[in-house]
């Protein structure tokens, strides 16, 4: 699969993953702002809570879809090593994001209760994406 994707991307699979990961991280930041508006914690962005909820839902779906694409290429490809420390941390953050997403979707779609925990789950999710970004994109940029 990695060979196929490397071919499709003109041997630039890592660059594409870096770009997608950065987009997902940016969307995770957007999610925080719109969630804060949705929960009436902030008046920014200056739109109605209902509109903030819609944007939050759409950008969230886009973020998790793109994130899933990157995650699957990681699992099919380079996943496995636990050293150096950066790689170990990346594996921990990646797995943690899967677990947090499972909890979030269980709360939202299966249990349909415990909504008060969503801000904490969302914060943890943002920090997880931040950890993933920091342990991959930052390394990619600094090693160039």
């Amino acid at each position, binding site marked *: 699969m*990695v*060979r196929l994707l*490397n071919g499709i991307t003109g*041997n*630039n*699979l*890592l660059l594409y993953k870096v770009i997608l990961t950065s987009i997902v991280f940016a969307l995770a930041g957007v999610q925080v702002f719109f969630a804060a508006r*949705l929960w*009436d914690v902030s008046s920014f962005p200056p739109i*109605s*809570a*209902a509109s903030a*909820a*819609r944007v939050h839902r759409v950008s969230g779906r886009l973020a998790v879809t793109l994130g*899933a694409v990157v*995650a699957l290429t990681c*699992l099919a*490809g*380079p*996943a*496995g*090593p*636990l*050293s*150096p420390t*950066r*790689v170990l941390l990346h*594996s921990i953050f*990646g*797995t943690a994001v*899967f*677990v947090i*997403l*499972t909890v979030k*979707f*269980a709360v*939202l*779609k*299966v249990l*349909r209760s415990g909504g008060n925990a969503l801000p904490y789950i969302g914060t943890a999710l943002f920090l997880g994406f931040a950890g993933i970004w920091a342990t991959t994109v930052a*390394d*990619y940029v600094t*090693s*160039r």
Partner: protein
Amino acid sequence: MPGLPELRLDLASCMAQDTEVEKVRHPAGIAVTALWAALAVAAPVVIAERQARGSGAPPAGRNTVVMAQITFRPSTLVVDKGSHVLFVNKDVAPHTVTAASLGIDSGVINPGKGFRLVVNQAVDYVCTIHPSMKAKLLLRA
């Protein structure tokens, strides 16, 4: 705070709409939750399985570069001009041997596979999948 009651009504109305939508999408919601749960389990399983398969990388032999633990070993290899260098992937992840400026590209070398290169000049090379992996081949004077 002016306008707050209106905003709360707005939020309540939005959540009410969500509730209607959720009722229709419930099976899909369960499927998506199950997908994330599967990935949460798959990630550590994949890592553990590859760790078990790829542990114990042997030391590099003469004119051999071993890829292990996200490094090229040795990081500098001195060889005679025209000699063959064998790159062996003993890691649990795929790697490449790439020196773009010299037109050298092994393509993806999967775990357990190798790549042979005839060395006619000094080569600084990297793995394009793990760009922190850098090493060089030098010609014996």
